[in-house]
């Protein structure tokens, strides 16, 4: 093949140019990897410490709120104080869960911190605070999604098997309900991720028998059960146990205490679900993100893989705190180009990648959260109905 023949990728670049583009990205990667050091270690240790402090403090603030329930009869004992303290604790717990999921769990399991050889922070032993077991997620995410990003029929994350996110997917009447699916998945994202499983998909499509997928399901169920025990039995139960002797003196049922704590934990989990859903849906589904056919990626070189990651991912703009809370997945493009680079380095790499893309006349999809989420939602609505081919991004030209 001569270099003048245009590639099957939707770009106006010769093969030689694409390879050169890949080499430049490799150079950026090598430079950052070589400069990792004590500063990065301090960063992740600080985030982990902050997250743990926030989580445990949040839970005890929720408990503290119970001492202001109207039944206590002291001057501050009223619903307003009680609920605002519980609300504060819930928010702290929710933010801790967000940090744990995004900046810590997601990134540690991407092996971003394995280079430190810290036995306590290793991708293969890390377990995170969600229903899905880490090893299953690492397979469906690191292996399937990051290798086959946005390739139809290969990347299970293209619509998660329940939504039509690109006009390249054939329409089906079931997609009419996808605006509802969208909202439901937002609220129950954690459970969705746990069930987002190649094995389950294989079973539903008749490629594997139930007996074959049973061990995987059991594994998921065991993890989910420990999660339920923690958030909906242990923490509320301990509060209820204390409330039992108190209920002889105070007109307040231990069950109500149980319900308040369990409810606060549920809200914290839903907070985290909505946030992660929002960030993750803005990663590959906003307007302008490319999808690919299996023919386009056949015999793909590393440089072409880079190119596909750039075209298929979208960044979200925001402040420093926003980036940390998003697990730096607001730098989705950089994350997809360099999945095992420690996340605190994405902000410094981002302008370089952007400049590189501009030099090659390639799109660099970056916009505010409202814009990215808005176009994701509109696309979701439109693609519930047949057609929508005009939503497919056109070829990128310099």
């Amino acid at each position, binding site marked *: 093949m001569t270099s003048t023949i245009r590639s099957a990728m939707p770009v106006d670049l010769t093969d030689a140019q694409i390879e050169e583009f890949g080499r430049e990205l490799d150079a950026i990667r090598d430079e950052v990897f070589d400069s990792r050091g004590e500063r990065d270690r301090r960063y992740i240790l600080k985030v982990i410490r902050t997250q743990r402090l926030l989580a445990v403090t949040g839970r005890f603030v929720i408990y503290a709120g119970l001492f202001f329930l109207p039944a206590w009869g002291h001057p501050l004992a009223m619903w307003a104080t009680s609920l605002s303290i519980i609300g504060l604790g819930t928010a702290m717990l929710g933010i801790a869960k967000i940090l744990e999921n995004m900046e810590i769990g997601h990134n540690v399991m991407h092996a971003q911190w394995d280079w*430190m*050889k810290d*036995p306590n922070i290793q991708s293969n032993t890390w377990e995170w605070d969600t229903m899905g077991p880490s090893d299953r997620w690492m397979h469906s995410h690191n292996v399937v999604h990051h290798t086959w990003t946005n390739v139809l029929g290969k990347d299970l994350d293209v619509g998660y098997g329940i939504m039509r996110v690109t006009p390249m997917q054939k329409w089906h009447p079931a997609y009419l309900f996808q605006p509802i699916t969208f909202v439901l998945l937002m609220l129950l994202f954690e459970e969705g991720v746990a069930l987002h499983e190649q094995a389950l998909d294989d079973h539903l499509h008749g490629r594997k028998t139930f007996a074959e997928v049973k061990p995987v399901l059991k594994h998921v169920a065991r993890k989910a059960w420990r999660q339920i025990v923690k958030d909906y039995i242990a923490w509320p139960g301990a509060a209820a146990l204390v409330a039992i002797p108190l209920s002889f003196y105070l007109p307040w049922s231990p069950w109500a205490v149980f319900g308040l704590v369990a409810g606060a934990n549920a809200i914290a989990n839903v907070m985290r679900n909505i946030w992660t859903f929002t960030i993750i849906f803005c990663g590959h589904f906003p307007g302008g993100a490319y999808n690919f056919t299996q023919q386009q990626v056949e015999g793909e070189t590393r440089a072409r893989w880079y190119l596909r990651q750039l075209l298929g991912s979208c960044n979200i703009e925001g402040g420093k705190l926003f980036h940390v809370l998003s697990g730096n997945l607001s730098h989705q493009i950089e994350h997809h180009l360099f999945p095992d680079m420690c996340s605190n380095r994405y902000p410094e790499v981002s302008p370089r990648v952007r400049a590189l893309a501009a030099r090659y006349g390639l799109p660099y999809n970056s916009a505010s959260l409202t814009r990215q989420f808005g176009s994701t939602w509109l696309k979701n609505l439109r693609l519930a109905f047949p057609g929508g081919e005009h939503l497919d991004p056109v070829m990128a030209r310099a």
Partner: protein
Amino acid sequence: MQTDASAQPRAPSLWSRVTAVTDYFAWPLRTSHYVELVNPLWASHSLQARVEKVWDETKDARTLTLRPGVNWRGHRAGQHARLGVPIGGMHYTRTYTISSAPERDDRCITITVKAIAGGRMSHHLVRQIKVGDYLPLGLPQGDFYLPDAQPVKPLFITAGSGITPAMSMLRALIAQQRLPDTAHIHYAPHEFDVIFGNELRAMAAQHPRYKLSLQLTQAISAGSAAERHFSAAQLDALCPDWREREVYACGPQSLLDALEQHWQGAGLSRRLHIERFRATQAPIPPDAVGGLVRFGKSGVQASADHLTPLLRVAEDAGMNPPHGCRMGICHTCNTRLLGGCVRDLRTGKLLNDVGAIVQTCVCAAAGDCELDL
């Protein structure tokens, strides 16, 4: 044989019963991860030590006083422990002999580290570590310690930083007030290079049964330098009754080899107890060659000679593979051979079965090879 106190089944402590319950609250972490936020020494999921004091013994040797976490079990005088240090963000591990006596009443231990030329970790420990730092610590290990049935007459032969296990034993014997008739031959280049010099001399002055002979191998004085190194004649002169003594020796390879030869010649090998900081190496055939080492997982390639351990090759190539003792005893560095041939430097044997376990710290390339690192 090493007797391991922790191997005996023990009834679960009250604390472990409590944490068994609280772990349900801490899932997917453990209670210990939250306890660590209050005090890292109380954590049970990883043992750490706090640096309490740093003390310069000589110009290039420093003693660190460490307070180990609650899960530390007492050591036996002469044992060593693995110490981890983050350098440039990366976690490194080395083994150091504990130089303090188990009888210390403040629950602290000391290690004495000598900065070795080109030693990444020893330099960091000697120059960079500050009071208040927390370092990951392993449990005490090793079978170089005095038996409970105490030898009647010990002879310590030590050189340089090899003094550390002997120091721990001497301090223990004195603390137990049962110091027997003890002879000690210690080699050091100069007077000012003697680690624990003042304490040794004070001990010799205070305890008539402790006979110290310092051999300053490079000091300017009468006699040739060769006379001040170990020799049969020197041993006869310094310790005429050496045949009747149990010998505990620690120091550089050359000294230990000489001792082994000497005691073997006298048919007294059983009396010689040796602690090595490095694995003994088998003679390597003159036709041995190195080769190209490929590290399968990381995709790194490096050329290696037939002498350099593969662990060192990997580190020089910018990798940081798992490792521990660096002398072939802890098996932390185990990896699989994916192809080619390596030589176990301790036995000289060649390993070439695909899938064989390779201890990278004591194996070198023998031709091209590929490892699962």
